[in-house]
């Protein structure tokens, strides 16, 4: 227990610090110009100097990411539930969900931007991030709803369960582990979607982190680019850990994946 915690937290921390020190020393000793590779200390300074504007940008990106994620969960789970109720609807719609998934989102972004209009760039960002994020939830939940125990299904029928009871008491709980696995993938994808969308579509009036990176790059303000990048990574990590934590909380009592083994 103690050992595994040490291994999980302390060792990566030491590796990280060592890497930063090495980076700092290498940049100073070799005299690498700042516009090629700034030292970590310079990135930190830039982060502090631009703290207000970067935090605002972080908030913009976070807002798009979270909205897209929430809508992806609603859309993905909703559509999967619809599929579980009717094979006909599933047969009719699933292929188009796949088409939406396999078409590179960057290639349809300009189209979306034209359709929603340049006055509503945020809506375009949301749609693009949603397209990227929703498919894993749809496909995982669809699979999960189908993997309910057949004998339990028979038992529910035997006890005269309604369609709604079968869905809420049997199918959705059975699908929960699959759904959460899908959400973990989608959380990261929503962020990627938000960043890609901003690269392609710009930010409109408000400016997200991705746009800050482009902006700083154009001005050769590399420390600021790194600072924005740092915040993006941090955001991704926070999303990942939040969803991992939620998964653990929801499954720890009963699901194989969340159990610690003694041997």
């Amino acid at each position, binding site marked *: 227990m103690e050992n595994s915690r040490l291994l999980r937290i302390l060792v990566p921390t030491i590796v990280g610090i060592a890497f930063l020190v090495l980076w700092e020393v290498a940049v100073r000793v070799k005299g690498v110009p700042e516009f090629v590779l700034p030292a970590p200390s310079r990135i930190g300074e830039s982060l502090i100097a631009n703290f207000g504007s970067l935090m605002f940008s972080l908030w913009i990106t976070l807002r798009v990411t979270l909205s897209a994620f929430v809508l992806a969960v609603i859309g993905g789970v909703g559509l999967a539930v619809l599929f579980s109720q009717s094979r006909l609807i599933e047969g009719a719609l699933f292929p188009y969900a796949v088409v939406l998934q396999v078409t590179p989102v960057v290639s349809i972004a300009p189209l979306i931007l034209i359709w929603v209009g340049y006055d509503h760039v945020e809506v375009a960002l949301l749609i693009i991030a949603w397209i990227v994020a929703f498919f894993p939830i749809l496909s995982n939940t669809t699979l999960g709803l189908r993997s309910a*125990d057949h*004998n*339990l299904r*028979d*038992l*529910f*029928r*035997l*006890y*005269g*369960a309604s369609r709604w*009871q079968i869905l809420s*008491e*049997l199918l959705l*709980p059975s699908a*929960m582990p699959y759904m959460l696995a899908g959400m973990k993938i989608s959380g990261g994808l929503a962020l990627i979607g938000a960043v890609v969308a901003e690269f392609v579509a710009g930010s409109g009036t408000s400016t997200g982190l991705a746009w800050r990176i482009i902006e700083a790059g154009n001005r050769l303000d590399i420390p600021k680019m790194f600072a924005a990048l740092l915040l993006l990574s941090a955001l991704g990590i926070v999303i990942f850990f939040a969803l991992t934590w939620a998964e653990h909380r929801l499954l720890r*009592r*009963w*699901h*194989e994946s969340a*159990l610690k083994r003694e041997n």
Partner: protein
Amino acid sequence: MTEMSGTPLIDLQDISKTYDSGTVALQSVSTSIAQGSFVSLLGPSGCGKSTLLRIIAGLVQPSAGTVSWPSTDGARPSDIGFVFQDATLMPWASVFDNVYLPFKLRGQSAKDVGPQIMDALSRVGLADFTKSFPRELSGGMKMRVSIARALVTRPPVLLMDEPFAALDEFTREKLDDDLLALWQSENWTVIFVTHSVYESVYLSERVLVMGARPGRILHDMMIDEPHPRGRAFRATAAYGQRCAEISDALRHDAGGA
């Protein structure tokens, strides 16, 4: 020999089942099950014994023939206890919530039926495990939860589909004894599917020996030994003789296959 003393609970008339693939699972099965009796359906894999049980439960529709319940004007009672080969518990629900399921699906609150749930759990010896999750229990304990769930609504009939087949012998014999004790105290009708000759002789009053291709009833044998039987019964000559008879009947019909 197949005369029955009690009121028939279930009447099966010419039940046949042919699957879409063309497999004939059952052909012209007719029999009746007496109220309060313990009947085993015994036979090799593929003889349609599980299919017959599911037809009785109403989970599978027969291709031909009728299942009627004379004591309830022909209609299947709304309350049937069913136990599967696997415990078939909801892994996300506690032991209490698993046993609560039949009531929950009828819209009864856990508070109202709490005493009945506790009673069912203490009957199977799990009163101290209400908050446990299925994952934390042994195979035998899970099976006990499954039995508690089947008996909690006090159904008139309990259908069991090879319920103890996946358990080790020691646990199986223990559960056999517990099942017999419950059967005697609850005045149930039990239909018990098994492929074990010994288990069928030990438990039942009557064994329906089934054969495969097509699935049908070959022999209808009474095990007219008194209950309660207890462990000592396994050592009696009568028990050995019954087992031998039924084994012979099964082997004969397998046709040396």
